[in-house]
């Protein structure tokens, strides 16, 4: 195994740990909704919410970085250039995340000064990390970019996938710089903030996971490189062709000109197209190989990624993206429903698939299979679909009672929050969140055990005896 692949396994371990913290923070934030006064003035909703979404961003980012460190030496047939520096940055990254989490929990907020933004909390959703930590993340990403580019140059080999990856890393780094300034004008602040959030999540990250899935499919199913690279280019053309101006669906109501209503609505409506393409691609590949694989969990998680990305990101996004509908759904639990489904489908499932792929190689298992992965797969996806459905019910109630009927005032907001359909949805979200948490625990148990020699031997003996594997 290459050193960069050992580093990848460390990144996966850190990602899975943060995934767990994200779930705990999510359950606490859900409890805030269900029980009034929960942890008031001790651990308020704003803190649990911040922890929930920031750990999500970081575990996904760590998963992406780990996946690239895993596949890069295979793709370029050599060790990653500057691996020592990459190993150091991993520990700096982990230390920075731990310190920021501790500051969020124990310090929480400060006075209205620049010092608070530098050392406590920047107070901008998704990029709350104080500036010193944001500099740390920038350095980690810079070293990551250097590793990829320098390795490709040293190998004198730039495959189609590595080429797309290298170009994609430029906006991945460049857009993050928007995390730093504090702009007084809220309209302008949100204008640039959406460049970071949308162009990361709905463009740069989509391309990144596209590259990772392309590499995964070649390893998992032995798919022909020519087919994989053709699909990747089509995906890039469609994702960026629709997604760059799809940015407009965030510019409906922030003070920006009204032409964004038309532009944002039109291009957002096209955004599901590349995601549908990925489903076709995945189903085609699976059919070609008659669903036969040596790594069932990775195979099923790849399928979950394709369908989850399309339904969660594409269909659920389209459902609320036209301005005529968004006027009522914007800023309600409807958005939360879409957000959960999209992040899970597009990115969470893909990273879990890559981890299973990596473990198969790392543990030298001919066949990777277990009973536990099926349980975790079922419970995690059931938990997620349940949360998404419950939040949608709450969101619809909120859109009707607060926005359409109530006129969005403080009183209308609170009346919607106490509406029986809203409350039922929000309670069921917590219930399905617990189901999701159980699925997570089984996933971790499985990741620790699956494919290890002892288990593999037992499976082999069971098969030889004619019993269930």
């Amino acid at each position, binding site marked *: 195994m290459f050193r960069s692949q050992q580093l990848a396994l460390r990144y996966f371990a850190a990602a899975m740990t943060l995934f767990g913290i994200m779930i705990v923070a999510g359950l606490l934030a859900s409890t805030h909704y269900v029980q*009034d*006064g929960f942890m*008031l003035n001790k651990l*308020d*909703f*704003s803190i649990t919410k911040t922890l929930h979404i920031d750990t999500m961003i970081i575990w996904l980012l760590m998963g992406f970085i780990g996946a690239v460190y895993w596949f890069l030496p295979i793709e370029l047939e050599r060790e990653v250039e500057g691996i020592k520096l990459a190993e150091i940055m991993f520990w700096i990254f982990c230390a920075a995340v731990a310190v920021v989490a501790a500051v969020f929990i124990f310090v*929480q*907020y*400060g*006075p*209205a000064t*620049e010092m608070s*933004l530098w050392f*406590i909390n920047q*107070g*901008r959703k998704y990029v*709350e990390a104080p500036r010193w930590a944001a500099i740390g993340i920038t350095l980690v990403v810079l070293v990551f970019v250097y590793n990829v580019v320098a390795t490709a140059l040293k190998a004198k080999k730039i495959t189609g996938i590595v080429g797309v990856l290298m170009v994609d890393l430029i906006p991945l780094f460049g857009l993050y710089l928007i995390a730093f300034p*504090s702009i007084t*004008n*809220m*309209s*302008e*602040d*949100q*204008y640039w903030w959406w460049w970071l959030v949308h162009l990361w999540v709905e463009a740069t990250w989509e391309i990144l996971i596209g590259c990772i899935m392309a590499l995964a499919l070649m390893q998992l199913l032995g798919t022909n490189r020519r087919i994989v*690279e*053709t699909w990747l*280019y*089509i995906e890039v*053309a469609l994702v*960026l*062709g629709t997604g*760059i*101006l799809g*940015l407009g669906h*965030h510019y409906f*109501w*922030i*003070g*920006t*000109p009204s032409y*964004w209503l038309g*532009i944002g609505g039109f291009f957002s409506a096209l955004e599901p197209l590349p995601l549908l393409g990925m489903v076709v691609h995945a189903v085609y590949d699976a059919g070609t190989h008659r669903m036969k694989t040596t790594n069932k969990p990775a195979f099923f998680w790849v399928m979950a990624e394709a369908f989850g990305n399309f339904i969660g990101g594409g269909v659920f996004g389209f459902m609320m993206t036209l*301005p005529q509908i968004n006027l*009522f759904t*914007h*800023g*309600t*639990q409807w*958005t939360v429903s879409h957000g959960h489904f999209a992040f899970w489908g597009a990115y969470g499932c893909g990273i879990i698939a890559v981890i299973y792929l990596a473990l198969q190689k790392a543990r030298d298992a001919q066949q990777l299979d277990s009973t536990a992965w099926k349980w975790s797969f079922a419970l995690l996806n059931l938990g997620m679909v349940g949360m998404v459905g419950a939040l949608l019910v709450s969101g619809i109630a909120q859109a009707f009672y607060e*926005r359409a*009927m*109530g*006129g*969005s*005032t*403080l*009183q*209308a907001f609170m*009346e919607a929050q106490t509406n029986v359909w809203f409350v039922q949805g929000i309670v069921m979200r917590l219930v399905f969140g617990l189901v999701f948490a159980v699925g997570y625990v089984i996933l971790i148990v499985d990741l620790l055990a699956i494919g290890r020699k002892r288990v593999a031997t037992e499976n082999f003996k069971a098969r030889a005896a004619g019993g269930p594997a």
Partner: protein
Amino acid sequence: MIAEDPAFWRAGAISSTLVMLVVLGFLTVDSLATIRPGGANVPAYTVINKEIRYEFDVESNRYRPVIGAEQLLFGRNYSAQEAEETMRLGKLVIQSRNCMNCHTFFGNGAYYAPDLTKAWLDPAWQQMWMPMTQSSTREDAMAIFLMNPEKFPTWSRQMPNLNITRKEAEALVAYLKWMSAVETNGFPIHFGHIQTNR
């Protein structure tokens, strides 16, 4: 067949990306001019010295902010420089207290607490908080509430005490007043024009 050649699709990917980036560049230049303070959609910060309303405009078929006559804030008339400094402080309060992870601004943020886009215009300040805080003005009631939210519980969900000082609270109220005057293409629809009673 040309479509079977990956190079064809690579060229398609590069060209569609570049075209869209150029279009986004032009639209960004125009949008930034429109949303600068004093631009077509975003008022100058000194709008805090004026009365602000939110009324239905038949011609555009949506609700729009309307700037009225002089209406002092905290009994003061802010100069351009004072207004800008106040807005700067107000925005720092919003960021340092992590407001966006409970509330939304222009509908963006978390969804645990009310949207604050037009909060300045909310009838509840006059109907509920002015009597509760024994204040004679809306801005005073808002400032007192923000400094001591636990003393004025209204609905079942409460706001935490974030140790907001009087100066910070006044800047925050001024910020919310300015924000209510931003042209938001009709969002939120008919804000404050419906009395709910269910």
